[in-house]
């Protein structure tokens, strides 16, 4: 008998059909991944397995059976006993998925007691036990901490501990590593793998990241628009995809092991940073977010700055643009030192949703730099904005539309058009594609490359994604704790890393080939054992 049996599942929110006739099964102890881009309905399926749509107004059709419970027909009480006890769920954002007001150990104990009715002390002891199991050091003491006292990776471990508390038969993990750094992601995926080996529980992994799926499961369902496009063993689907959409998706995934064609960089230096340092906080709490960083950027080249969260890469980017004053050191633009913002150095921001004013049309947003420069002729402005919109692959008629009418990728194009409006020589892109799906990511990256060739722009590409950085960069700087630990031509750094931290980062990147992934996992285990 299978652990999960989904037949002809449909989920509708109003007029929107999020899941459309989906069927699959999961044998006890097996691992299946639902892979798809945002809006493909994969998370909706995960929620439906636990009947979480009940009472939300969504219409769920078809049949769902999980661990012998008919989720569609079960009484509320029966469903409550399924949730957490037989099938537990781990969510994407560990920051917001735990109650900020209670100690982590208490939250795990609470969930445990709901299902086992053991005394409070026993539940608390169990909480410490599972926290220890997922690798929280000094679990007894740390179980009294509140979520904000944990790092992102530790919070995700705590959520997994909560899932383990009642020894479920099925673990549903909805984008469990999306918010995490690549090294932490590798640790969490390894943890899930080990736990599965030990407990024999089944895993349903929901992810947009094909690499994460390749690392973790036996079988893959590729979803698009609520339907299954392709279904099969992970090696077959990722190795020789039968459907064109799957091929397209895989083609868009940036590869960390593939060199790129170099851009036409010249020797002319457009931006130079020397011994930059930036401190935050005062007195004893002061710390240097960026410490002694020097960087030279030539006309027409792309410099990638890669690092994990907290490495200081965004602070560095902001200082290059002049949005932040360095505590020490200086930024010289074409040989001249200059304080404050500089129209020739522009920025593209990470989050295309929040970096555009929702109450102003995109045309007005793009026109801002023109007006700031003193342009007053409305006709001229409109003409130039229309030109820019077309240049980034949108339509001139979009001038009067508002940000919410655009998709994420289109909004990022608007952000790029706004940066171009000031005729910059350098654009600093701070995580420009990390909020986008892989296919959109590839399009935006291609656009940036085109613009660079045409306009002779220098790009500083700040990102945490090693593969994306390799795809776009001529030279790379790896940052850790405010310092550059390694820098050089991209191919050298990636193919022959010298610094141990760079090696660690590269070893943590998920591989698309399941066999390679297994080999790397073994290597990581040896590294941690040693």
């Amino acid at each position, binding site marked *: 008998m299978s652990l999960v049996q989904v037949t002809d599942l449909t989920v509708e929110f109003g007029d929107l059909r999020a899941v459309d006739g989906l069927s699959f099964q999961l044998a006890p102890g097996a691992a299946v991944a639902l892979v798809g881009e945002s809006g493909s309905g994969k998370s909706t399926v995960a929620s439906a397995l*636990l009947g*979480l749509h009940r009472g939300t107004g969504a219409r769920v059709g078809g049949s769902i059976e999980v661990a012998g419970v008919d989720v569609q027909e079960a009484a509320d009480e029966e*469903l*409550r*006993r*399924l*949730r*957490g*006890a037989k099938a*537990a*769920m781990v*969510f994407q*954002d560990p920051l*917001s*998925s*735990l*109650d*900020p*007001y*209670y100690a982590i150990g208490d939250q795990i104990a*609470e*969930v445990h007691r*709901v*299902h086992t009715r053991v005394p409070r002390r026993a539940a608390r002891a169990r909480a410490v036990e599972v926290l220890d199991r997922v690798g929280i050091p000094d679990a007894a003491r740390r179980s009294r901490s*509140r979520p*904000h006292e944990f790092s992102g990776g530790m919070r995700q471990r705590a*959520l997994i501990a*909560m899932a383990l508390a009642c020894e479920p038969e099925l673990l549903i993990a909805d984008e469990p590593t999306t918010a995490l750094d690549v090294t932490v992601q590798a640790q969490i995926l390894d943890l899930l793998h080990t736990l599965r080996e030990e407990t024999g529980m089944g895993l349903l992994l929901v992810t947009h990241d094909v690499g994460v799926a390749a690392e973790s499961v036996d079988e893959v369902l590729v979803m698009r628009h609520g339907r299954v496009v392709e279904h099969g063993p992970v090696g077959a689907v990722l190795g020789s995809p039968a459907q064109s959409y799957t091929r397209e998706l895989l083609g868009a995934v940036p590869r960390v092991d593939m060199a790129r064609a170099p851009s036409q960089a010249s020797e002319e230096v457009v931006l130079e940073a020397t011994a930059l340092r930036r401190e935050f906080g005062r007195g004893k709490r002061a710390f240097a977010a960026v410490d002694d960083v020097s960087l030279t950027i030539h006309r027409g080249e792309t410099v990638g700055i890669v690092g994990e969260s907290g490495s200081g890469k965004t602070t560095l980017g902001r200082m290059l643009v002049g949005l932040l004053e360095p505590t020490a050191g200086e930024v010289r633009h074409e040989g001249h030192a200059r304080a404050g913002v500089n129209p020739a150095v522009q920025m593209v921001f990470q989050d295309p949703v929040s970096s555009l004013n929702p109450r102003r049309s995109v045309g007005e947003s793009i026109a801002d730099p023109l007006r700031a420069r003193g342009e007053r002729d409305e006709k001229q402005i409109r003409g130039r904005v229309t030109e820019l919109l077309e240049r980034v692959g949108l339509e001139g008629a979009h001038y009067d539309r508002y940000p919410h009418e655009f998709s994420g990728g289109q909004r990022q194009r608007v952000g790029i058009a706004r940066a171009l409006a000031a005729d910059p020589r350098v654009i600093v892109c701070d995580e420009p594609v990390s909020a986008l799906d892989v296919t959109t990511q590839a399009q935006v990256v291609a656009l940036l490359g085109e613009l660079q060739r045409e306009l002779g722009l220098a790009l500083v590409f700040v990102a945490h994604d090693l593969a994306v950085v390799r795809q776009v960069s001529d030279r790379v700087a790896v940052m850790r704790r405010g310092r550059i630990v390694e820098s050089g031509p991209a191919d050298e750094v990636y193919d022959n890393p010298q610094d141990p931290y760079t090696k660690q980062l590269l070893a943590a990147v998920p591989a698309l080939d399941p066999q390679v992934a297994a080999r790397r996992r073994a290597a990581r285990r040896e590294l941690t054992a040693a």
Partner: protein
Amino acid sequence: MSGFGGFLLRRAVGTVVTLLAISVIVYVVFYATPGNVAQITCGPRCSPEQVHQVAQQLKLDDPLYLRYWHFLEGLIAGQDYSTGTSVEHCSAPCLGLSYQSDRQVMDIILTKLPVSLSLVLGAMVLWLVLGVGTGVLSAWRRGRFTERVLTALTLAGWATPVFVIGLVLMIVVCGELQLLPFPQYVKFTDDPEQWAWNLLLPWLSLALIEAAAFARLTRASMLETLAEDHIRTFRAYGVAERTIVGRHALRGALAPVIALNANNVGSAIGGAVLTETLFGLPGIGQELVHAVNVVDLPVVVGMVLVIGFFVVLANAVADVLYAVADRRVVLT
């Protein structure tokens, strides 16, 4: 300095500065008020000589800064006042003498304050229980019949003036049903039981209106918290909805309730004039209105400072409560 001691010290300094600023503003505003203060104080039948005498006695002809300086002196060192026949000593902190009654302002405040505190603190308990309870219930039962009834009731409560509710209560409870005598203030120290019985109606009338505001705020705040990710986590782990609402959502929803409560308690101590008047409670609000009408500057300044003190105090208490409710909050 850090920690709780540092927090208290910084707050105390801030309070003093705030109160001094308030007193300056009150002085300036009253200085600019039209009308002959001496004439009003002396009464309509006074002759010009008598009015002149009063003005001299009250030092009304002194320049503003000098009068304010005297006020500060009295506050720190105390002051002697000659009332024509005898000399009265007003010990520090001295807020001066009333122009009207020659009574010390501090005495007046000390007789009125217990009345206002009894009214407001008692009503606060009622409005928190009623308001937060209603808010939680309507968030939990959102979209159902219970919520619609509660929403209608709270809207009606909010829209009704306090004197309407108070009058209706009095007519029904004391007049028609004769369940309670018409309220009159009894000191808590004289007879606690009578104190409570007599204050019951004033508490109810003040609390019903405030409760409506708290119900709406709690409901909105609860709905926001219920939509958060960590609530979804507990649902997905089979925790009962009752526990989710009562334990996880309520705690997250409390912050704005604490803030509103601090403001309302602080301002109701001087601002519950309608309730005080309606039920004949000799509280701060009534006295303040009277003092403003007769331009009794020392009483007005004293009352305003007391009200200001309670607003600041209530907000400091709220900040401590925030930090207790949410351990991420650091008191500074």
